[in-house]
C-alpha cells in the first residue's frame, strides 16, 4: 500500500513536470512567471491567454485524461481476457468506436455543428455502440469452451480493425472536404484540435465509470484464477465479465471520441503498472491510469515539438514506442 502511494506520488510529479515542459516549450516560448501570471490571472495578456488556455492547456489536459482512461480500460481488458497482449487498439475496439463516430459525423453533417456542444456530447454514445459491436464480433470469433483463445483473439482484432478502418475511410470520403479533414485527422489519433468542450464531454464518463471499475477490481484478481474456482467463490463469472467489458468500452469510447484511434497505451500501461506494484488490481488500476497519462502527455509533446515545423498525430508516436514493446512482450511470453 505504502509503495503504491509512493509510486503514485512519483508518477504524479513526473506528469506535472512533463505537463509543465509541454506548456512552456513550443513555437512561442513561455517562461515560468508568464505561466503563473496567466494561470492565476495576476497580469493576464491576450497573447499568453491564447497560447496557454486555447492551445496548450486543453491539449495537455485531454492527453492526460485520454491516457488515464485508456490505461484503466486496458487493464480491465487484459484482466478479463486473461491475455497480456490484449489492447483496445489491437483488438479493434478503437476502430469500431471510430467507425461509428465517423458514421455519426456523416449523417449529421450540416444538421449539427460538428464542433458544437450537442454533437460533441453525443459522439461518445455512438462510439459506445461501435465499440460494443466490435466486442461482440471478437467474442463470437474467439470465445471457445469458456475461454478466449489468444491467437484468435488477436487475429480477429487485426481483421476487424482493418475492416472498420476501411469502412471509416470509405465513409469519410463521402463527406464534404472540411468534415473529411476532421475525420482523417481523427482516425490517425490526434489531439491537436483539443478544446474545452471535448474535455467537458469526457469528464462525466470518466467520473462515473472509473469508480465503478475500481469497485469491481477485486473481480479482476479473481479472474486470474480459473473460471471454475471463481465460480466456486460465488461469482457469476460471465455476467461480471460482460459488465466489466461494457464499462471499459464506455471508457474507451469517451477517449476515442476526442482523440481518435490511439493504440498501445492500453497494452503498455498495465504491464508497467504490474511490474511496479504487483498483482492486486486495486493498486494496478490507478497506477496504470497514471502511467497511461504520463505516456500520452510525453508522446504528445514529442509529436508536437520534435518534428517541427510539422506535427505528427500522437497515435503514430505512440505506436512507434508501442510496437517494440509489444514484440518484447511476445518474446518474453513463455509458451
Amino acid at each position, binding site marked *: 500500500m505504502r509503495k503504491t502511494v509512493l509510486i503514485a506520488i512519483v508518477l504524479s510529479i513526473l506528469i506535472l513536470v512533463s505537463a509543465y515542459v509541454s506548456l512552456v516549450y513550443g513555437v512561442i516560448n513561455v517562461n515560468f512567471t508568464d505561466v503563473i501570471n496567466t494561470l492565476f490571472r495576476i497580469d493576464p495578456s491576450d497573447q499568453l491567454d491564447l497560447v496557454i488556455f486555447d492551445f496548450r492547456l486543453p491539449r495537455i489536459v485531454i492527453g492526460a485524461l485520454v491516457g488515464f482512461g485508456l490505461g484503466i480500460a486496458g487493464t480491465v481488458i487484459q484482466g478479463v481476457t486473461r491475455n497480456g*497482449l490484449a489492447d483496445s487498439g489491437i483488438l479493434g475496439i478503437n476502430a469500431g468506436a471510430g467507425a461509428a463516430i465517423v458514421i455519426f459525423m456523416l449523417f449529421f453533417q450540416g444538421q449539427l455543428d460538428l464542433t458544437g456542444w450537442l454533437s460533441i456530447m453525443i459522439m461518445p454514445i455512438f462510439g459506445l455502440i461501435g465499440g460494443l459491436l466490435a466486442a461482440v*464480433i471478437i467474442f463470437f*470469433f*474467439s470465445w*471457445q469452451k469458456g475461454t478466449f*483463445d*489468444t*491467437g*484468435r483473439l*488477436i*487475429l*480477429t482484432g*487485426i*481483421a*476487424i480493425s*482493418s*475492416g472498420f*478502418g*476501411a*469502412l471509416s*475511410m*470509405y465513409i469519410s*470520403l*463521402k463527406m464534404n472536404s472540411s468534415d473529411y479533414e476532421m475525420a482523417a485527422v481523427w482516425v*490517425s489519433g490526434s489531439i491537436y484540435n483539443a478544446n474545452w468542450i471535448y474535455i467537458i464531454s469526457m469528464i462525466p464518463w470518466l467520473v462515473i465509470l472509473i469508480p465503478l471499475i475500481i469497485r469491481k477490481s477485486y473481480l479482476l484478481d479473481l479472474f486470474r484464477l480459473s473460471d471454475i474456482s471463481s465460480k466456486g467463490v460465488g461469482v457469476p463469472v460471465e455476467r461480471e465479465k460482460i459488465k466489466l467489458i461494457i464499462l471499459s468500452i464506455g471508457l474507451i469510447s469517451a477517449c476515442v471520441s476526442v482523440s481518435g484511434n490511439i493504440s498501445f497505451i492500453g497494452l503498455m500501461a498495465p504491464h508497467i503498472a504490474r511490474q511496479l506494484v504487483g498483482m492486486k488490481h486495486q493498486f494496478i488500476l490507478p497506477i496504470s491510469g497514471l502511467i497511461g497519462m504520463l505516456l500520452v502527455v510525453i508522446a504528445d509533446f514529442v509529436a508536437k515539438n520534435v*518534428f517541427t515545423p*510539422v506535427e*505528427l498525430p500522437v497515435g*503514430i*508516436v505512440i*505506436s*512507434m514506442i508501442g*510496437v*517494440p514493446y*509489444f*514484440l518484447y512482450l*511476445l*518474446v518474453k511470453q*513463455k*509458451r
Partner: protein
Amino acid sequence: MKNKTRLAKMIILISPILMIITTILSVIYGTKGISFSTIWEAFTAYDEGNTDHAIIITSRLPRVLTAMLVGAFLAVSGAIMQGMTRNYLASPSIMGVTDGSAFVITICMIVLPNMTSIEMILFSMVGSALGAGIVYGFGSLIPKGLTPVRLAIIGTVIGTFLSSTSAALASYFQISQDVSFWYNAKLHQVDVDTFLLAIPFGVIGLIIALITSGHITILSLGEEIAVTLGQKTKWVKALALLAVICLTGTAVALVGKVGFVGLIIPHIARFLVGVDYRWLIPSSAIIGAIFLAVCDIISRFVNHPFETPIGVVTALIGVPFFLYLIYKRGGEKHA
C-alpha cells in the same frame, strides 16, 4: 483429383475470354460512359483528335491492365508464401512485405527525390525483401514464432511499425502528399511508363513461380518429406523467395498497398483446383487478375461519382473472408 485438374484446365482455357470481358466492362464503365463501338474504333481506327479514343488508350486501358497484373502478382506471391511456409495466413500484406516496400520507397523519395521509375521498382523489391526478412527473422527468434498465428501477429505489428515510421518520416520531410499516393493505392493515377517498365520484372517473377511450382507442391508437404524425396530445399526456397520479392515489389511500385488479395485468392484457388501448385499458381494468377479488375470497377461505383481507393474495396471484401478463415482454422490447435 482428376476432376480438380480438369477444372484447373478449364479455368486456364476460359481465362482469356473472362479477361477480355472484364477489360471491356472496365473500359466502358466510368465517369464518362463509352460505347462498345467507340472501343472498337479506338483499336481499328485510332483518331488522335477524338477524346474518347484518347481516354481509352491512355487512361482506361492501362488502368485495367495494371489492375489485372497487380492482382495476378499479389495472388501468386500469396500462393507461393502459403505453400512455402505451410502457413494458411501467409500473404504479402499480412507478413509485412508490402509495408516494407512502402517504407523503402518513402525513404528513397526523401533521399533521392528524382528517382526514375526503374529505380523505384528496384527499391521496392529491396523493401519487400527487407519486410519479409524482418518478419521471418523475428519469427524465428522467438519460441513457436513461425506458427501461422504468431507469424501473422508479428507481421501485422511490424507492418504497423514500418508504416507509422514511414508516415512520420514523410510528414517530417513534407512529402506526405506524394507518399499518400501509394498508401491509398489509387489505380487511376497509374503512370504508363512505370507500367511498361514493371512488366518485365513481374513476368520474371511469374516465370520463376511457374518453374518452381512443382517443387513448391513437394515443399508444401513438409520440409522433411521434401528432403527425403531428394529436393534441394534451400534452392527451391531461395528461388521462391526471389519470385515473391519480384512480384510484390513490382505490385507495390505500381499501385501501392492493396491488402487481402494475396490472402484470399490462393484459398479460393485451392478450393477450386486442389493443392497441386502447378495448377494452383496459374489459377491464382487468373483469379487474382480478374478479382482486382472487378474490385477496380466496383471502386468507381460505390461512391459515384467519386472514386474509392481500391484498397478499401479489397478490405471490405477481404475482411469477412479473413474472419471466416480465423473461425474455421484459427486458434492454437492449428497454430
